[in-house]
């Protein structure tokens, strides 16, 4: 059965050519990246026969290994904390009326809107001032490192998590909570048995988003990192400056694989949680796909 809105004739051909071009544009660089990660030649772009040398190098490169673990730890810790805080913020904004609610609401969006560089400089200044004060008061010698990176990631992740969770909460009728209260549930039990099960898809979407953003971030991390620790993307960025070798390709392929795994996981979760789980995860996916490009796209992704 063909509907009248289905394109026909030359339009149909033009549209399909167009979509293939778009896919080519998307995936050709990835294809090149993956192929040359198996190239035996030191120069990227020149095929020197198949090898797994660069993957072996990756596993033996202690600094790279170190960076991977810093990345993973920062991502997990910042995700955990920002999911808790972001969900609480979303609940407060969506369910309670309090003084300064509008201001809080606006401020919460700030990390999403302001450019990464601005945020990074703010973090840099904050940590140096803050550490100075703490050093002076308690006689410490604080250095930027794992802690400062984690804190800066939490700072931007809270916003993203709360946006995604709020989208989910807004779609959930308050009457359900009233019904639970009416059926002898305390406020805590209402949250535990009714509100939380309802917003799980939002919370999970927010967590995956936070995880991805944390693993991807270069700009803010670069300013918040110290001699003690650096994350994988920042380390790779540093490697590139010293010349590109297929080791970077291999590293990128591994990062890519991890990202794809997260996306697949999020899609699987969406399937699992059924139709009711869609809006917030869609918001999450849009935010994910928007983040690495420009800030205007993020706004579209978040505010639509």
């Amino acid at each position, binding site marked *: 059965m063909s509907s009248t809105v289905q394109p026909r004739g030359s339009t149909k051909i033009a549209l399909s050519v167009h979509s293939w071009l778009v896919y080519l544009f998307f995936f050709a660089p990835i294809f090149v990246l993956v192929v040359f990660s198996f190239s035996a030649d030191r120069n990227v772009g020149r095929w020197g026969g198949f090898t797994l040398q660069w993957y072996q190098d990756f596993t033996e490169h202690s600094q790279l290994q170190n960076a991977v673990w810093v990345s993973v730890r920062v991502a997990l810790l910042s995700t955990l904390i920002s999911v808790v805080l972001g969900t609480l913020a979303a609940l407060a904004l969506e369910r309670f009326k309090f003084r300064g609610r509008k201001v809080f609401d606006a401020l919460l969006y700030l990390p999403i809107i302001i450019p990464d560089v601005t945020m990074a400089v703010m973090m840099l200044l904050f940590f140096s001032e803050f550490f100075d004060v703490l050093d002076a008061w308690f006689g410490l010698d604080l250095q930027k490192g794992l802690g400062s990176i984690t804190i800066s990631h939490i700072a931007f992740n809270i916003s993203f998590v709360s946006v995604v969770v709020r989208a989910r909460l807004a779609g959930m009728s308050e*009457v*359900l909570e009233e019904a639970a*209260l009416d059926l002898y549930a305390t406020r805590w039990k209402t949250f535990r048995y009714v509100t939380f099960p309802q917003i799980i898809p939002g919370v999970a979407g927010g967590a995956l988003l936070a995880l991805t953003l944390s693993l991807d971030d270069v700009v803010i991390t670069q300013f918040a990192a110290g001699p003690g620790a650096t994350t994988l993307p920042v380390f790779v960025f540093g490697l590139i400056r010293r010349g590109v070798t297929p080791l970077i390709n291999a590293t990128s392929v591994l990062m890519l694989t991890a990202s794809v795994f997260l996306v697949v996981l999020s899609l699987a979760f969406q399937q699992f949680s059924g139709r009711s789980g869609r809006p917030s995860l869609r918001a999450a996916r849009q935010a994910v796909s928007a983040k690495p490009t420009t800030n205007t796209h993020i706004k579209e992704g978040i505010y639509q």
Partner: protein
Amino acid sequence: MGDGGDHSVNDASAAVQLSAITKRFGDVVAVDNVDLEIADGEFFALLGPSGCGKTTTLRMVAGLEFPTEGSLKIFGNEVGTLPPNKRPVNTVFQDYALFPHMTVEANVAFGLKMQRVAKAEIAGRVQEAIGLVRLEGLEQRRSQQLSGGQRQRVALARALVNRPKVLLLDEPLGALDLKLRQEMQRELKALQREVGITFVFVTHDQEEALTMADRIGVMNEGELLQVGTPEGIYERPVNRFVANFIGQSNLIDASVVSGDTVCLADGNHIPGRSDLPVGTRVALCLRPERVEMHPVTAVPAGHTSISGRLESVTYLGNALVYTVANEWTELEIRLENQPGGFRPYVGDDVAVSWMPDAVTVVRA
């Protein structure tokens, strides 16, 4: 308020007692100084147009809103500011508010689980409640897999399983289509008789209130205007609003001349009993089915009549609705479709007449 021969409720047995209850939202007065007693075992309807404060009143009884002023007692215990989980009442919400992530069984068991009732007892009572609303076999369904009527039953079972002292129903049939609604009306009434619990239900549908309730409270703009049996309210509305809201009424402006006479706008004095002071502006409430229509020259003896011109005829099959108008009023007459009856044409001059006891004088 509360006239019309309805049985009065004695304090000790009142299931719900509202004394001078007022609820304000900012500057808006949602419920204005309401006094109301609902007897144990009664099927009580709060009736009014949307925004009249009936739902707010129900929510205050449920504990979902707290009154700004006044006292609210359930079986003699003050509950004004108790949270909903500490009150012996349960609610059937307007859109049922079933928990979508739970099965029918889990929904029904929720209240008992929250009260830490023993597992074995929960299982028994849930089965009993599901049987009561005839949902056997659907225990493992989720609310998305149920029809509107089935959801309604789950909501009822979920509330009744807790054996509340009072069951509150917020527009329980509003989301159902007409046929199902009429079926559920009968069922709800039968169910109430079976469980013997006090039902308080909110509706904007006067027919529903008349059909189901033992007593009705009519609300408008936050005020409780009249409380009485369906018959008491229909036969003796206290004011123009109630007369118009419950059933259809012809309301004719008049003023009181004496205890049993009123003066119409054209200066004619006609019978109309009231105990209002002489000179009070009133309205004569004439139900369309209580008036007759005759040729101007053939008004039966003992009838009071107003003459006018026939403006329109609406054919309803079993009845005909005529509109008759003159310079100062317009009347609607509903006549059974009987063969051989008086059948005037549009434009004819006719007399609309009634027996003196067919008219009720209400405050304008």
